[in-house]
C-alpha cells in the first residue's frame, strides 16, 4: 500500500531487503513523475508574471521581438517615466489614493461581514431562511444587471466623484461572497465557547468581540486580504464613480498611460503594472495561507 500511505522509510540499520529496494524505486519513479508534472505546470502558471517583470525592464523596441523574459539591454526608464506620470501627481499619490479607498473599505467589510455572519450563523430570527437565500442569490447575480441603476442611485445621493460609492456598499456587507465565507467558517466552530461566555455573563455583543472574533481571526484576515486585493485591482468601480484625477486610484492611473490614440510606451505601462500588482502580490505571498484557507472554507464547508 505504498501508494496510499506514503511513508519515507529511513535507512534502517538493517540492510534494505529486496522488497524494500523495489518499493523505494517505485516510490522514486512515482515521485519524479509527480514532481516533474507539477514543476512544468507550475512554470506555465507563473511564467506570465516573470515575463511581465522582465519585460518592464526591456526597451520598447525589444518588447515585441521575443517571448523571452530576460531583457537584452535592461533599463529602468520605464519605472522612472511611469512614476512621474503625466499628471501633476506622482504614482505615489495614486498609491495613497488607493490606500485611502482600500483601508476604509476593508475595515467596513470586515466589521459588517462579521456582524452579519454572526447574526446568520448564531441566531434564529423571523425571515432568516429567506434572507440567507438572498445571500446565495446575490452570489449568482451578474453585476451587469445592477450596474446602471446603482450608478443612478449614487448620482441621486450626490456621491459621485467621491469614495462613498466604493465604501458604503461594502460597509453594508455588500459582498455576499465574504458574508458566505464567514458564515461557513463560523458554522465549523463549536458554540460551546460562546455559551460558556454567555454563562460567564457576556452579552451577545461581548461574546462576539471577546470570543468569536479571536476565533474567527483567520477568516476575517482572509476576508481583509481578498478585499484588499480585489479593491486594488478593481478598475470599473473607480472608473465609473471617480472623475477627478486627483482622486484616482492606481488602477485608473495605470489606465491613463494606456491610450491607443498615440504611440505608447509598453515598458512604462508594464513597469506600472508591476508596481500596481506589487502590493497584491506581496500581500498574497505573505499571507497565502489565509487566502487558501479562506477560499477553501467557502467551498468545503458549504
Amino acid at each position, binding site marked *: 500500500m505504498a501508494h496510499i500511505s506514503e511513508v519515507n522509510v529511513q535507512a534502517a540499520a538493517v540492510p534494505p531487503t529486496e522488497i524494500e529496494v523495489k518499493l523505494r524505486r517505485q516510490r522514486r519513479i512515482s515521485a519524479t513523475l509527480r514532481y516533474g508534472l507539477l514543476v512544468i505546470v507550475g512554470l506555465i502558471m507563473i511564467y506570465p508574471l516573470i515575463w511581465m517583470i522582465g519585460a518592464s525592464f526591456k526597451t520598447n523596441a525589444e518588447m515585441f521581438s521575443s517571448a523571452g523574459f530576460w531583457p537584452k539591454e535592461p533599463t529602468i526608464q520605464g519605472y522612472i517615466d511611469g512614476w512621474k506620470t503625466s499628471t501633476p501627481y506622482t504614482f505615489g499619490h495614486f498609491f495613497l489614493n488607493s490606500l485611502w479607498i482600500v483601508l476604509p473599505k476593508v475595515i467596513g467589510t470586515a466589521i459588517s461581514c462579521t456582524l452579519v455572519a454572526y447574526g446568520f450563523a448564531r441566531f*434564529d430570527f423571523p425571515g432568516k431562511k429567506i434572507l440567507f437565500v438572498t445571500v446565495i442569490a446575490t452570489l449568482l447575480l451578474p453585476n451587469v444587471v445592477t450596474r446602471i441603476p446603482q450608478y443612478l442611485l449614487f448620482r441621486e445621493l450626490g456621491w459621485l466623484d467621491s469614495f462613498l460609492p466604493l465604501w458604503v456598499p461594502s460597509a453594508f456587507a455588500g459582498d455576499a461572497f465574504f458574508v458566505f465565507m464567514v458564515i461557513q467558517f463560523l458554522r465549523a466552530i*463549536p458554540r*460551546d*465557547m460562546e*455559551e*460558556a*461566555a*454567555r*454563562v*460567564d*455573563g*457576556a*452579552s451577545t455583543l*461581548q461574546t462576539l468581540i*471577546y*470570543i468569536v472574533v*479571536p*476565533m474567527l*481571526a483567520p477568516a476575517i484576515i482572509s476576508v481583509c486580504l481578498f478585499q484588499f486585493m480585489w479593491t486594488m485591482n478593481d478598475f470599473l468601480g473607480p472608473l465609473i464613480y471617480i472623475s477627478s484625477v486627483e482622486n484616482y486610484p492606481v488602477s485608473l492611473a495605470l489606465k491613463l498611460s494606456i491610450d491607443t490614440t498615440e504611440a505608447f510606451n509598453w515598458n512604462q505601462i508594464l513597469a506600472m503594472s508591476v508596481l500596481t500588482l506589487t502590493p497584491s502580490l506581496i500581500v498574497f505571498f505573505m499571507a497565502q495561507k489565509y487566502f487558501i484557507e479562506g477560499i477553501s472554507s467557502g467551498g468545503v464547508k458549504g
Partner: protein
Amino acid sequence: MAELQLKSLVKTYGNGFKAVHGIDLDVKEGEFMVLVGPSGCAKSTTLRMIAGLETITGGEVRIGDRVVNDLVPGKRGIAMVFQNYALYPHMKVRRNLGFGLQLRRTPKDQIEAATNEVSGVLEIEELLDRLPKQLSGGQAQRVALGRALIKQPEVFLFDEPLSNLDAKLRASMRVRITDLHQRLRQEGRPATVVYVTHDQVEAMTMGDRICVMKDGYIMQVADPETLYERPANAFVAGFIGMPEMNLFPAVLTREGNIPCLTADGQTIKVTDGLSHRITTGDGPVTFGIRPQQLHVVAPGTDGAFTATISHIEFMGHEINLHVRLGDAQLVAVVPTDSFDTHFARGDRVGLRPSGSHVHLFDAETGENVSLGQGSN
C-alpha cells in the same frame, strides 16, 4: 448557594420535537444532583434550560427565590462546565478563569486573588500562563472547573464533564470533584450542583441524589442506595448496576403465601424475603434479579431455574456467566474462586435468585410491584 426548582418544565424544539415533557425537580441547597439516562433522554436539554442556553417552552426554573426564565444566562447566578471544556482557546488559563469576573467589572486585584485561590484548590498554579491547547485533557477539565468555581455561583451545572477523558483519568477526576464538593460543604459554603452524565458509575459514586431520566420524563429521583436496591421501575432497575439487572418475563402465582414464579415453563418458589413485599396479584410480571444475586447451583435444585450456558466471560476476579433461559438471556456473576472451571458452553446449570433481592415489575407499566412494606 441556593435551592434550584424545576416546575413542569417543558421544552419543544423549533422542529416541533418535544424533548422535555413537563418535569418537576427540586435540588436542595448544597445538594449534588446527578441527571442520568441514556443518550437522547434530554439531560442536556434540561441542563441547558436551567443555564438559559435554551429557551424554556413551558413551566419555570427557580433559583433561590427568583424565577429565572427570562434572564440571560449571565444573570442567573450559575456556572457551567462543558463536556469538551469550552475553554476560550485564545486566552491564557489565567484570563479564562478571570473572564467572568472581568465582565462583572471586578477590580483587578480581586480577580487575581480569586484566580490564585481557585488555582490553588485545583492545583493548576503552574498552568496559569498556558494556552488551552497546551493542556492535557485532565488539566483542561480542571481549568474548566476552576472557571466555574471562581464565580461562586448559586448553582453549578455540569454536562458530562468527564466523558472526554480516558478511564483512569475519569476515575481520578470523579474523586476530585466529589472531594471538592464535600470540602465546600465542610467549609460552610455548600455548592448546589446539577451534574449530567450517562455513566451510571459516575452517577452512583458522585450523586447525593440521582435523577434518572428517559425520553424527557423523570423515572425516579433518589439517593444511590435506594436507586440500586429499590428501583421504582424496570427502566431504572436495568439502567443502574453493572452488569445490568436481568429482566425477563415471568408469571407470578402463589402457593399459600409463597410466591411462585414461572418462566420458560419452569416454576420456582421464592421463599425468603419476597412475599411480604409484593403489592400485586397473580399474573404476568417482569422478573428482575441482579447478576450478582443469581447463584449458580446444580441443575434441578429447589428454587432455581435451569438454564443453558451460552457464553463465559473471564473478568479476572469474577466470571460473567451468560446463560439462556428460554428466550431470555441472563447473566450471573460468579467469583472466580468459586467457579467450577469445567463449565462450558452448552452446559446446563441451576440459577437460584436470592429472594430478598428479587424485584418484580408490572409487565405493562414496568412499575416495581415488590416495594411493599419491608426493606430488602
